[in-house]
């Protein structure tokens, strides 16, 4: 079953075409990765889905409902939560209060919201920082705070914009664990990511953008072997090396 349907989405800034006729589906309960080189239009696409930008043309459909161009707070209430690539903690508020803002979206009562917030805080390994001002956290904790806060809105779909980039290897493992836990809770994940070690083992499908155009949409295994993707994403040199290595491997197997 399709949860999110992006159809012919185009976004231009003046003469610059950030996204051109991009279409893809996100299946309910799956983890979909959105990858592509820098400037491919991944974040722009995210902002169009989340309502921060109005698409120039095309449609975004959530659960059969057209959400194209709605303001971001409405889209959030319909069940799409997001994190920001450049983290945006509500600085003068504590970790718990940050998450509580998200939890209040579906619960007017602070007691009930606090319950949800506590769970999200635990899920994201943030309990020991509960009363710290969020402005003073390390980048790893700030990134997990982004996720915890988005999660507290109890979304159907969560958009993670480079939630792993810039983290240490331990932090990457923690974040991957957080994403796995979300999937177990039945939340659909659409994530932009550069760190292939993070996305390869967990994604059910990858969508590849290059210069604003979708060039591939397939299972991770197939995507990394797609010659166009290799050229665009890993560069000509790496793709040649990959090819020769592949041949050697084949050779080895034969022997």
């Amino acid at each position: 079953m399709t949860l999110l349907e992006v159809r012919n989405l185009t976004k231009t800034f003046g003469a610059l075409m950030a996204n051109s006729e991009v279409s893809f589906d996100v299946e309910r309960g799956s983890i979909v990765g959105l990858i592509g080189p820098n400037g491919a239009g991944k974040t722009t696409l995210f902002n169009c889905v989340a309502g921060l930008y109005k698409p120039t043309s095309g449609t975004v459909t959530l659960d059969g409902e057209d959400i194209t161009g709605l303001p971001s707070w409405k889209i959030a209430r319909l069940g799409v939560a997001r994190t920001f690539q450049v983290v945006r903690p509500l600085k003068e508020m504590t970790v718990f209060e940050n998450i509580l803002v998200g939890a209040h979206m579906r619960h007017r009562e602070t007691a009930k919201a606090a319950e949800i917030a506590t769970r999200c805080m635990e899920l994201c390994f943030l309990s020991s920082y509960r009363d710290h001002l969020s402005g003073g956290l390390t980048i790893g904790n700030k990134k997990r705070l982004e996720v915890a806060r988005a999660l507290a809105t109890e979304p159907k779909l969560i958009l993670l914009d480079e939630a792993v980039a810039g983290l240490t290897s331990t932090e990457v493992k923690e974040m991957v664990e957080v994403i796995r836990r979300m999937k177990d809770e039945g939340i659909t994940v659409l994530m932009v990511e550069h760190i292939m070690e993070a996305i390869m083992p967990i994604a059910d499908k990858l969508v590849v953008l290059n210069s604003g155009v979708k060039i591939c949409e397939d299972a991770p295994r197939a995507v990394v072997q797609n010659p166009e993707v290799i050229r665009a994403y890993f560069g000509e040199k790496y793709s040649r090396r990959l090819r020769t290595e592949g041949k050697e491997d084949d050779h080895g197997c034969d022997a």
Partner: protein
Amino acid sequence: MTKKTTLSDRLWYLFLAAALVLPFIPGGIGNSFHGHVLTMVLLYAAMAQAWNIISGYCGQTSFGHAVFFGIGAYGAAMAVVQFNTLPWYGAPVGAVVAAVTSVLISAPCFKLKGHYFAIATFAIVEIFSRLFMIWDWVGGAIGLDYPILDDGWRNFSWSSDKNGYYLGALALFTLIFGVVRWIESHRMGYYFRAVREGQETAESLGVHSTAVKLSAMALSAGLTALCGAFFAQYNYRVDPPMVMSLDISMKFLLITILGGLGTFWGPLLGAAVLIPLQEYTRAYLSHLGSGVDLIIFGIIIILTMIKQPMGIMGIIRGVTRRTSTVPAKEGDA
């Protein structure tokens, strides 16, 4: 959930109890100058707290609060002077008119962000003050003078023993501080602060930031108008420069900033420092010309801001952090 603010809670009830007992001990308020100063401290603390809702908690700096203060003052005065009825009817009408006016003014102005919003509100004060100057129905430039009324709560007026005014100011203070206390621990309070800390982030969490800002503004303006009504009753007259000037607007700002912007105790602390200063300089230094109090205000605020941008609350927090036996581990591991 047990909250950590128990000390603040205890201070709050202790303060209210002490303030309530004060007029009943002999020589407490009566008709003394000190009684007048205490009344003014409570009034200005209440005004500053009302302003703190939109500008401190919600982060939208308003220079326009003299307008809402003035509307409230005119509400009470018009009820008494023009309609020959009780100020009790005028005050709530003034509060509603102020709230509606604030929404009408802010709806377009909230499209401006940061300093531009502040500048727009600056202009509003001038517009309203001119408007009231030439509007004969509300007394024009001469203003409205109260007739002689019987003392008591019915007319909210006392000529000899001023205990009533003190208790009235205390009630107003309790109302406004109570409202803010309630807001702080409820969804609205979290939303106010979320909008201040990052509008786009708040919206990504389902917060309709325009609606949140407008409700903060309406609430702030309505409560400010009640303070204005009290001010009219206390002074027995209203005219535009008295209630709708940038001087008044600045006082909301200066008191709160000195005490601590966006903090619960800040407005009271700021008023407790600046208002006695204002009243005593007016009484003893008035031969130096008008505005001496504002000069002293300015110097104190500059000095405080250099040392501690969070005002008196910031200084207090710094001291308690340093002296507490268990140092709070700020920052991060």
